[in-house]
């Protein structure tokens, strides 16, 4: 198999584009896809202050590398979730990456700064680890993004397509109305952008390897209940039979579907009695999780 551009031996095949690339031209291809996404969806400009959520995984580290390569100055924030070795290893890899490239990295430590870990929280709530983890990450990232023009997220094509499928399977119209490459800032919530949505998961992994990026390869020990991962596995079967179907599904939705689910009148957001962040209730979901996780006995007694 040979590179579409230079005809040298190919390192990566992209079946949905009916193409293969050598290492250099693959890296260039991915960077171009990201640049085009940033441009097409008017995600940000060269003077914007950008904060990237980094996990130590391939997607966020590859994206940090790509954005830096494209000339953007991007700070990173790592959320230490207290998931044993998985968290500490991912942190080391993230710190190494940032140090080698002289990038600014901030670490938010859930156990130290907020008094609980994801495993602790999961044990004290009636919900899955991933759901507690997801809402905690959204809260902490939004909080960290104060003062920045945009919060940049490393979600790739497969993440977004699987999330879309999950929302369609449940006809979760509210979430469908909010799934977009760019989420504009609203009162108390940072602008969110996803520059990797045109790059498939296999391609971000290949990019990371070809760029010599050391990332966390092992899985989160709590991943078993992760519905997005299960949906991804199902979708990869469809993709194997008809390459390109994932991208058609996602971008067809952005172009022709999403408009039908646009959120009408926004629900009034109040502020959380405990932390002041925007919420529809009295106390926000994160503060409720935190409360139960840090006072498990009192909750059980009441």
């Amino acid at each position, binding site marked *: 198999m040979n590179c579409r551009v230079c005809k040298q031996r190919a390192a990566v095949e992209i079946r949905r584009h009916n193409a293969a690339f050598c290492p250099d031209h693959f890296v260039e291809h991915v960077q171009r896809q990201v640049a085009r996404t940033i441009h097409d969806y008017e995600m940000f400009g060269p003077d914007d202050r950008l904060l990237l959520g980094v*996990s130590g*995984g391939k*997607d966020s580290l590859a994206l940090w590398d790509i954005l830096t390569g494209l000339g953007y100055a991007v700070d990173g924030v790592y959320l230490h979730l207290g998931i044993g070795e998985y968290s500490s290893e991912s942190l080391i890899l993230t710190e190494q990456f940032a140090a080698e490239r002289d990038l600014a990295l901030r670490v938010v430590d859930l156990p130290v700064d907020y008094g609980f870990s994801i495993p602790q929280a999961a044990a004290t709530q009636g919900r899955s680890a991933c759901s507690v983890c997801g809402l905690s990450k959204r809260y902490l990232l939004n909080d960290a993004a104060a003062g920045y023009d945009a919060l940049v997220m490393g979600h790739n094509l497969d993440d977004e397509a699987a999330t879309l499928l999950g929302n369609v399977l449940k006809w979760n119209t509210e979430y469908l109305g909010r799934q977009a490459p760019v989420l504009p800032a609203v009162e108390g919530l940072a602008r969110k952008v996803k520059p990797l949505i045109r790059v498939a998961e*296999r391609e971000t992994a290949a990019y990371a390897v070809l760029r010599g990026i050391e990332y966390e390869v*092992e899985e989160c020990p709590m991943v078993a209940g992760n519905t997005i*991962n299960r949906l*991804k*596995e199902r979708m990869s079967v469809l993709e194997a039979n008809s390459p390109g179907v994932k991208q058609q599904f996602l971008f067809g939705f952005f172009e022709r579907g999403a408009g039908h689910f646009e959120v009408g009148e926004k629900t009034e957001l109040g502020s959380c009695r405990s932390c002041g962040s925007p919420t529809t209730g009295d106390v926000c979901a994160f503060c409720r999780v935190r409360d139960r996780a840090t006072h498990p006995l009192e909750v059980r007694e009441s």
Partner: protein
Amino acid sequence: MKVVLRHPRREVVVEGPSIVRDLLAHLDIVPESVLVIRGNELLTRSDKVEDDDTIELRPVISGGM
């Protein structure tokens, strides 16, 4: 050849040489689900692997995020 698998990390030995496509079929692995890594090289389905190679089959779905 030595084949390194992940999630969790483990090793198996496969009689080589082979073609990546056949190696993956032999191990019952969907080609799109892994990167085939030899040293700091990525291999495609049509590449040849030798008996004395060490090959890592690295899943592309990251467990977590």
